[in-house]
């Protein structure tokens, strides 16, 4: 049973691609954020690490069974700063997933705290086991 799957094939989902230039003309990088997905009695919960993204920079959409998250990263390091040591690059986050019909799209709920996005994907009522009364004839 699969309720959610990556929209991109694996080799694409982990690649880093340059995004189209923004209005200021600076090219921006685009990253796939690392995620966790686990099951609960009510459905699935998805976590995504989006450091540098606040609620204003987050865009979460569900359209045609596809859940897309986009996070725009803001940084306030002054231009005059000289980089001495760099382990990470500044870029935006994008990842999308295909949801199965077992997810109740209407009740998807999301919360962003300290750069971590939590998305609740409740199981649709019809996907829960239902007891069928059998009448004697």
């Amino acid at each position, binding site marked *: 049973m699969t309720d959610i799957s990556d929209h991109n094939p694996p080799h694409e989902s982990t*690649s880093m691609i340059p995004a189209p230039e923004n209005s200021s003309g600076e090219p921006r990088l685009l990253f796939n954020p690392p*995620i966790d997905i686990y099951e609960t009695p009510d459905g699935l*919960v998805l*976590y995504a690490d989006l450091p540098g*993204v606040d609620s204003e920079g987050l865009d979460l959409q569900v359209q045609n069974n596809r859940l897309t998250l986009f996070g725009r990263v803001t940084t306030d390091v002054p231009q005059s700063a000289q980089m001495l040591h760099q382990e990470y690059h500044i870029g935006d986050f994008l990842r999308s997933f295909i949801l199965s019909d077992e997810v109740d799209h209407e009740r998807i709920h999301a919360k962003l705290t300290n750069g971590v996005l939590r998305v609740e994907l409740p199981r649709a009522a019809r996907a829960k086991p239902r007891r069928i009364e059998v009448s004697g004839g």
Partner: protein
Amino acid sequence: MPIFRWGQPWDPFQDLEREVDRLLQGVNLTLHGVRFSRRFPQVNLFELDDSYVLTAEIPGIDISQLDVTIASNCLTIKGTRLPPAEAGEDAFRRQERFHGPWQRKIQLPDRINEDGMRADYSAGVLRVTLQKAPSAAARHIKVNEGP
């Protein structure tokens, strides 16, 4: 997304282009795979005229669990990132995010004023500002002529 293109989009070359794309993306995958296994958190260090600024991507930390110390020009940041309490070990379908205790030590290139230290945590990014110690002004040493 095409990464590599020949100048002329001739049909016989398209398969090769695709193959090169595939190879390049394979390389990216390898690099990214390294990224996952690399140290947590990732840090950047900047220098300004009068200070150093360290930024670290540490999403999802409670600031009460964040420990920032400095001793002998060595900055240490440490903490623990716990997995969601309600998730059992076998409930995970996908687990890519780092969980567990972590620690980073960063040696600063210059003396700093340990009193002028400031740390802020916002949107999962820690930012530590360290004032440089005022460097002693150059002093002339008089050279005496020998006998």
